[in-house]
């Protein structure tokens, strides 16, 4: 590839390099375990509080969600959030600001891989802490939870929905992070485009399935729903086949769009960066 950066290091080595990177990032995750655990706690807290809010709400008669549905929804949410969580939008601009990015450029490996493996390591560790907590809560709440079946089809769908969600969110955030080549504080953009709107239209505050049809037009077209609510909807199993197919199609479109935009920003940004120096 251009700039002497190999996107995929030559075939045979890639596996070894990635194993090495994973190991290194695992060590680093352990070193910063305090931080990672705090973040894990945080990602449980928000859905947990929202669950209580919804249980305390006096609902209109036509609400499709009952108490059990809300409990299921907000118990599954921390797990999904753990998978899709992405912080390149914080780390990448910081790398640029503090000058670590120069070091990344010197390595014979595309800098994106560092971020990818860092995410994998941190999430694996978080999952280790999260799964026991979520499962013990669901065991306690077992009586309230609606029945859900785990057919092979559903597990496969869930797997792909999650995978696409993870990749989509990563690509979205990283694309936004690329604007860091031009903008000093990407966090501000992130606050609006990623966090506030995401919480609203992704289904964090209000489950998407309970929204009135007018809002659904917006949520179903924008990418936010697919990075949070969609996998849980599949888990709950009340979503129609047609909707699932449309969902995947929309996801692929956004993925395609963001990948293109991200690549373009990366190239342009790199040209500026190398021209003006870090």
């Amino acid at each position: 590839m251009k700039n002497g950066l190999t996107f995929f290091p030559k075939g045979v080595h890639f596996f070894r390099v990635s194993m090495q990177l994973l190991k290194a990032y695992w060590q680093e995750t352990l070193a910063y375990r305090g931080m990672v655990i705090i973040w894990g706690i945080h990602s449980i807290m928000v859905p947990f509080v929202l669950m209580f809010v919804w249980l305390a709400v006096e609902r209109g008669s036509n609400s499709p969600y009952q108490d059990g549905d809300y409990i299921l929804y907000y118990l599954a949410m921390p797990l999904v959030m753990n998978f899709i969580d992405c912080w390149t939008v914080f780390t990448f601009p910081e790398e640029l600001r503090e000058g670590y990015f120069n070091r990344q450029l010197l390595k014979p490996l595309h800098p994106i891989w560092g971020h990818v493996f860092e995410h994998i390591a941190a999430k694996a560790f978080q999952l280790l802490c999260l799964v026991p907590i979520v499962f013990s809560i669901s065991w306690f709440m077992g009586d309230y939870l609606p029945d859900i079946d785990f057919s092979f089809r559903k597990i496969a769908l869930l797997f792909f929905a999650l995978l696409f969600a993870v990749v989509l969110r990563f690509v979205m955030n990283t694309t936004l992070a690329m604007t860091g080549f031009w903008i000093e504080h990407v966090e501000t953009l992130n606050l609006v485009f990623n966090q506030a709107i995401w919480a609203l239209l992704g289904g964090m505050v209000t489950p998407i399935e309970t929204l009135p049809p007018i809002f659904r037009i917006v949520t179903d077209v924008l990418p936010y729903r697919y990075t949070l609510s969609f996998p849980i909807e599949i888990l709950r199993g009340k979503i129609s086949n047609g909707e699932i197919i449309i969902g995947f199609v929309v996801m692929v479109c956004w993925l395609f769009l963001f990948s293109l935009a991200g690549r373009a920003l990366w190239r342009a940004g790199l040209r500026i960066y190398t021209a003006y120096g870090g």
Partner: protein
Amino acid sequence: MNFRTFSLEFPRHARILIQFWKTSLVQAMEYRVNFMLGIGANAIDFTIGLVQYGFFFSVANSIAGWQKDQMLAFYAIFMTIFSLHFIVLFPNLEAMSQLVNSGALDLVLTKPISVQFLLSFRKLSFDEMGSFFTSQVLLLGLWATGRIDVSAQNLFLFFGALFCSFSFVYSFFLFLMAIAIRIEKLQNMAELMWSFFTFCRYPVDVFPRWVRSLFISLIPIAFITTIPAKALTVGVEPSTVIWGGFLAVVFLFAARFFWKTAIASYTSAGG
């Protein structure tokens, strides 16, 4: 520090603080576009928060007994406290682990000044001014249109409760600052602060009864937003606010003690 030294030291500390804030402003003004962008983005963030309630009440009639207008007042008060914390405390908490890791804390400790005071307030962040002012506008709007109706007694209790609220937020903040000194590798204490605020974003009435009484009696979550908002909208018992004041004093002293022991055990790596 006894009262005499306090009254002697206070003017000097106030002057130092003003100097620090001036510097913060100068620094923020250096990137004027960012400055405006940050404030704008926060106003938008605030508005999206409002839209959340629109979503909420499109599905719900009331939340644990709170009607729509009361919820809006609640939101405005929450954002007031939340954004004040972002303006005054948060940048300092964020800078803390950096300060410890880079060893700059060493040099701060050799200055003839209250380290707690200096490190708690020296930085200001102006971004959240957007949320702060917007929430004041919302609150005034609610009052002007008669959606909330405030008696003199309620207003008095409201300010009392607000004072407790600030004290609790500050104690929690100081507690985290102290942890940042002890555990060098723990960055992003700020996230813990957010988790804490997550519980304050909605009325404590949504929680089961035992959690609610816990939040009023021992862990003062209820005093952060729920009690001030109640005081303003429907009124609270004076005894509740007095209890809050008592707890606030206890928490402030405990946090101060914890901070002092942390400073005493500081080992100052490197060099």
